[in-house]
């Protein structure tokens, strides 16, 4: 007999047990693993899609921001350029003003220098003139300059115009204070007496005279009474001399100003 019915039953049972075991240990875990993997792949793909979308969004945003930034930068640059231009203009103006001021100051300084020079020349000239005059007078008349001055003054008093004399005489009569004679130096008693006499003779009266020393008179003598004045001093000569010196300085400045190269005029050709 080829068929053993016990074996048939046992094999059928074995087979059913095997079916259950294989389901338990093979098909279920394998299919589960495959499903899990598929789910995972789907999830990863979805995640990748989401990330891609997000990246696209971020890229767009970034581009947008970049454009905005470019615009802002251009605006700022334009603003900065304008400001720089304005600042440049301002600085140029300031520099121009400063240059003008400096030039003005320089001119002022030059003017001051010229003035000081004038003063110095004037002083020096005055001293020189005195020295020369004194030396000359001493050499010629063997008398001091002051004496000569007193003499000149007394001579002028005497040779005074009648109109001036009358004016002075009126003034002397109405004056309550004594006549003031101011001089740059202390007059010796002789000269005082000479001046007193000259005044008395000129106005034909006994006039009370008060002598005073005033160094600002620059070597001269002055008679003052009730608003009237008779004076002689070297200052007059010095003033005229100063004018002369000024003219000399101006003449000296002119060539400096005109010291610019001039185009040479073509010379006419001479044929021989």
């Amino acid at each position, binding site marked *: 007999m*080829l*068929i*053993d*019915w*016990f*074996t*048939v*039953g*046992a*094999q*059928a049972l*074995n*087979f*059913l*047990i*095997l*079916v259950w*075991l*294989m*389901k338990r*240990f*093979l*098909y279920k*875990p*394998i*299919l*589960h*693993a*495959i499903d*899990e*993997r598929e789910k*995972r*792949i789907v999830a990863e793909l979805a995640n990748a899609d989401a990330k891609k979308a997000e990246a696209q969004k971020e890229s767009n945003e970034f581009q947008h921001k970049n454009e905005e930034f470019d615009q802002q930068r251009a605006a700022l640059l334009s603003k900065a350029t304008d400001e720089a231009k304005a600042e440049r203009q301002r600085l140029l103006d300031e520099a121009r003003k400063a240059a003008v001021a400096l030039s003005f100051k320089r001119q002022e300084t030059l003017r001051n220098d010229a003035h000081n020079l004038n003063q110095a020349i004037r002083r020096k000239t005055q001293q020189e003139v005195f020295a020369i005059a004194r030396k000359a007078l001493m050499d010629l008349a063997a008398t001091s300059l002051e004496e000569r001055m007193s003499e000149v003054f007394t001579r002028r008093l005497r040779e005074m115009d009648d109109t001036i004399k009358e004016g002075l005489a009126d003034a002397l009569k109405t004056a309550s204070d004594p006549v003031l004679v101011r001089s740059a130096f202390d007059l010796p008693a002789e000269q005082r007496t000479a001046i007193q006499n000259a005044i008395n003779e000129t106005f034909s009266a006994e006039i009370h005279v008060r002598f005073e020393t005033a160094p600002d008179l620059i070597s001269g003598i002055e008679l003052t009474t009730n608003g009237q004045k008779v004076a002689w001093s070297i200052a007059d000569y010095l003033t005229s001399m100063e004018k002369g010196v000024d003219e000399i300085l101006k003449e000296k400045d002119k060539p400096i100003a005109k010291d610019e190269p001039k185009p040479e005029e073509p010379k006419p050709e001479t044929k021989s």
Partner: protein
Amino acid sequence: MRLSPDEMIFWQHGFFKLNATIVFTWGLMLVLVVGSKLITRKLSTGLKRSRWQNLLEIVVLGIEKQIEEVGLNQSQKYLDFLGTLFLFVAAASLCTVIPGYEPPTGSLSTTAALAMCVFVAVPFFGIKEQGVGSYLKSYVKPTFIMLPFNIISELSRTLALAVRLFGNMMSGAMIISILLTITPFIFPIIMTALGLLTGMVQAYIFSILAAVYIAAATRVREPKPKPERKT
């Protein structure tokens, strides 16, 4: 000469006996279950996985695909039964390369048991899918006259399943043993290799036929759509 491993009995107590068929079946079961357990113990759900896992996935997905191609849409329902049928028969054939091994499928008792399992599984799945009435009605289609023929068909195909597998497996083992006595060199090896091929083909045929029977039983007959008239 033994025609069947049933004849090699290790232990017997009255009706109960422990023959080579049962012992080798247990051995195969042990190999299959332990192997599966070992491989599926550390399954990876990621993209990186072991070679053994890849092999098992290919086998399982291949079986599933074959079941789907036969016409069973919900293949996972039938995977346990049909897949185990294929794996058991295939493993029984593959192990013939081991000296001293007798394939349990070379015993008519085993093939009959498997065929009976199919014989029971067909109405089981049919009724589960269609319901009792609908399934039983399929026996009287297209006419009542067909009922005995359908019943005979059911029985005969079960017998055919059992005998086909038994014949092939037994003949393979028989040829090798005969060749061993005549030409002990070279030829038995070639025949063993041929036997392996035959075994795999038989495993495929057995499981595919079972799938076809189940598919025939579970298919809900729907009226064919009418062809559209041309205007």
